[in-house]
């Protein structure tokens, strides 16, 4: 468990460096131009109820799951 935690920490670090490098390449979008991004349909999860049902269905029907978030409670369906 500890070694896998260390491995995870390392990958996060590498990832952070990449993110920092990439974010510098992106031209700024000023707040007054974020009208489209503020719409409900442009949220990363626009419909939480749909997303939750899907997550549960595929969790109970497939061998791998997750990626979008963490926790959320266990279920005996898998």
């Amino acid at each position, binding site marked *: *468990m500890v070694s*896998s*935690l260390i491995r*995870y920490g390392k*990958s*996060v670090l590498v*990832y*952070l460096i990449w*993110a920092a490098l*990439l*974010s510098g390449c*992106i*031209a*700024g*979008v*000023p*707040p007054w*131009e*974020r*009208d*489209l*991004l*503020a*719409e*409900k*349909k*442009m*949220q*990363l999860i*626009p*419909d*939480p*109820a*749909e997303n*939750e*049902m899907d997550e*549960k*269905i*595929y969790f109970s*029907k*497939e*061998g*791998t*799951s*997750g*990626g*979008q*978030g*963490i*926790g*959320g*409670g*266990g*279920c*005996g*369906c*898998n």
Partner: protein
Amino acid sequence: MNGKKSIRNALAVAACTVLSQTPAPASADEFPWKADLSTLYYTEKDRVTVSESIASLRREIGSDEAFGLKVTFDTISGASANGAIFGANAGGVQTVTSPSGASRTINIGGSSRIDPLTEFTDTHIAAQFAFEKALWRTLTARAEGNLGFENDYDSYGAGGLLSGDLNHRLTTLTGGLSFNNDTVKPIGGTPVALNRVSDPTRLGLGEKRTIDLLFGVSQVISRTTITQVNVTHGMTDGYLTDPYKIISVVDTAGEPVDNLFESRPASRSRNTLFWRTAHHFTEDVIHFAYRYAWDDWGIRSHTADLRYRYELARGHYLQAHLRYYTQSASDIYRFSLAEGEPIPLFVSADYRLGNLITQTAGLKYGLPLGKKMEFSVRAEYLQQTDADDRFPKVDVLLVQATLSYSDLVDYALWSRPPP
């Protein structure tokens, strides 16, 4: 003297005025809330039927705090594949195991299906409490607790997320950690791994603990595009065997001669790399996600998920959904065991650990009910196929209806100015 008194009086009056000033009642816009009511009907051909409802509420309780409550209730009935092989000599009779742990025999050989035992049901009720607080202008924390109860399963969990905005709020970094402690409690206890199914010996409850870690970055790319990448790592240890799954031992002709309870390792380490992006075509919106997942049981999976929202008139919309999932089999997966071969320490014939493909297609229709309320209904069809072509296909139909209230609105509803 009089002058002093009048100053003192004036000060007292001023102090009282300040103290007695009650804050203006908060308007709905000042402390916004969100609510979702959703119900799902899910049915597998000849197998399980699930009916599930979710009620969720999120209320801001000040300028920098929010409280969330979500309650889920579902009922499940029917039978699910247990991993055993259907023998040609079995006369069309197969033993299946219910979620509540009671075995029954179904006859699918005849034209009509005969169930000698009563239909079973299982119910699941779960609640989630969440609290969010802005710790700093650009730093938000979220803590949540989860409870879930079924006839044969209990789950307790807690977790936390920390999100920080950088780069003029164009970049958000998120870190999260969650714990779960679950109990598997089939009626009568858990079976002994690799024992014959006919052996009535049962052990105590099964306990398992899970830790999940998440690190994510979301990034505004342009006025019309946002993207997010997450990496997650999860570790579970304890009773990870499915007490209802069995594996057949077959003779040289491939006919089952015995059935054993399956056996899975007592720990599992899981990883995912998840990427999603949303792009606004100034009316229509496309959401795309890809996930690569792998674990130390040998499963590798790829998932692609596409949702295209097509705007109709007056805020109505249609959304198409396509999803493709493919996974390679786990190292412990075997379709069956050969008679006389040494029994592996860990083995499962659960098709969900096999070479599996899931394909989904769906359509959703949404319509606004006023400025902040929306109703939507979707229907989806999904099919699971065994890439080894050994287990029968699973066909699923689901229908979901949702009533949603949110302060976040789509400009499309209100004659958006041209971009």
